[in-house]
């Protein structure tokens, strides 16, 4: 799993019940806008994400509807697991004693 995917999962996991649209997700994940669509599509295809349209009338509002994403119940559990594993890997790297030096 790439760092970008982990960043997206982390952003969505902050509040798993909250729906977010693409620009919000990229901003929360610290990724350039426009780069997360493949990630969202992959996660949705894998069943980790659910998506739905914003509930507005585009004509009345004078703007297109946003596409909202949130973690599915199964996706939330998998995301937590993936993030925990990534965090554990980072922690293990930090705890690894320095090598080399006097013997």
């Amino acid at each position, binding site marked *: 799993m790439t760092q970008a995917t982990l960043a997206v999962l982390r952003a969505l996991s902050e509040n798993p019940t909250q729906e977010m649209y693409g*620009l919000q997700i990229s901003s929360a994940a610290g990724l350039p*806008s*426009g780069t997360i*669509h493949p990630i969202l599509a*992959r996660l949705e295809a894998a069943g980790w994400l659910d998506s739905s349209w914003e509930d507005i009338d585009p004509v009345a509002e004078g703007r297109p509807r*946003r596409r909202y994403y949130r973690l599915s119940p199964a996706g939330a559990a998998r995301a937590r697991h993936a993030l925990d594993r990534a965090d554990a890997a980072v922690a293990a790297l930090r705890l690894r004693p320095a090598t080399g030096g006097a013997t």
Partner: protein
Amino acid sequence: MSDRTRILLTEALAYALDFAPTRSPTRALARTLARALARARTRDITSNYSLARALDLAHTHARALGHARTLDLARDLDLAGNLARDLDLARNLARDITRDLDFALDRDRDRTRNRDLDRDLDLARDLDRAVVVYSRLIKLLMHTELGVPPREGSARSAVVVSPAAQRVTTLVVQLLPAGCRAVKAEELAAELHDIAVAGGPRRRQLAHALRVLATIVPLRRALSVSGRRAAERG
């Protein structure tokens, strides 16, 4: 070679020739492209090598054109700072797109060797789209608002969605699997609108659209998988 592919390559050639009188490297590329086109006309295009080669040449030519023209834009306008950086960004994105399309072409060539005629027809259609998108992208970079400084004191209350960014997102949508186009078209339109509402200048909107275009290969792949799974679920 399909009539459509031939027309597209002819257009690309005509496009190259527009610039040929002033640029010898471009003229040479245009000549090479013309030769490839002439060869391709005489062959049965299900020998896809000719098509792929012609597309490669079109690619090379488009890349050279984009690079030279973008540099000229910056030089002629004598603009420094933000504009130069934005042009660099556009050029880098164009390079990324070229690389992605190259990967796609390589992969599709491999597929062509191993798959049946139906697959080949799909490939030819996809490559047609790639040619269209790439030539339009280069035209866009040449004529876009990238060279136009943002207007001073323009009314923030009016939402101005960049036509160039809209054109790029339209091209993105054309490259996606048919079943996903309507959803992505509206989603991308909403994103451009949101950037505009937030006061994002047209260049930022265009950069956003180009970033989406730069990820077209993985996006198309992911959406294809999604579509197949949906079909399997019935």
